[in-house]
């Protein structure tokens, strides 16, 4: 496994992963809004980003602490292009969507806090402590 410098981990991997994750929650928010709007639409199948290929890979790389893979996958990750039909839900379930909405909003909030903290770390590094 490649050895990473502290700054490399913070700046490139964490930074790009945070940005892409923020993108994903934004796309997911739009999809949940769309699912709720189409609650009575005949033949509509709920959409989600939760089963995107890159998202699965990232979750796997994170659980295995594999930073090489993480860097590669997160840089090529395009959340808006990984929208898929929910594999198990064939029609919109309102309670399911409301839970996803609450979860997604909190996820966005924590990611935005993390992003602010990350820039504080970089600021500290620039100032020399």
């Amino acid at each position, binding site marked *: 496994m490649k050895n990473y410098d502290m700054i490399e981990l913070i700046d490139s991997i964490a930074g790009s992963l945070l940005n892409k994750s923020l993108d994903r*929650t*934004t796309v997911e*928010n*739009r*999809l*949940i*809004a*769309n699912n*709720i*709007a*189409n*609650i*009575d*639409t*005949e*033949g*509509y199948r709920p*959409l989600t980003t939760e089963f995107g290929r890159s998202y699965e890979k990232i979750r796997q790389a994170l659980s295995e602490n594999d930073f090489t893979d993480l860097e590669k996958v997160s840089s090529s990750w395009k959340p808006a292009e990984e*929208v*898929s*039909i929910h594999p198990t839900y064939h029609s919109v379930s*309102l309670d399911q*969507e*409301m839970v996803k*909405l609450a979860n*997604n*909003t909190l996820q*966005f*909030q924590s990611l*935005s806090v993390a*992003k*602010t903290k990350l*820039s504080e770390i970089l600021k500290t590094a620039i100032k020399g402590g």
Partner: protein
Amino acid sequence: MITDSFAISLDGLEYQRLTVDTVAMNIANSTKTFSNTMDVYKPRDVVASTNGQMDANGIDGITVSERNVEPKRIYDPSHPYANEDGYILKPAVDSVEEIVSLMTAVRAYQANIQALEASKKIIQWTIDMSAK
């Protein structure tokens, strides 16, 4: 764009409001009396349709259509609108059905507002993030 989700939620709100309007119209017309089958008010339904694409652009099509049901025939020979057999005609509005769809529409309207609130929060936090 995140602001697209405002338009999507607005689509949902408009659809549910149209459903409430339609329920109101069905109930308002339910007590009317008619003598001719052709004139009888037919209850209306709001139907949403999808184009089957995964583009998440709100509701693709909304149409209001008349339910194809036979009017109710009530025997009331002394009624001024009664026909020669003594029957009057009333629209086939099922008030229980209408109230149920009214309640569902109101709940779904609230759900769309929740989605709108969430999108608003996301934009607010994005602004806060860049202000720091």
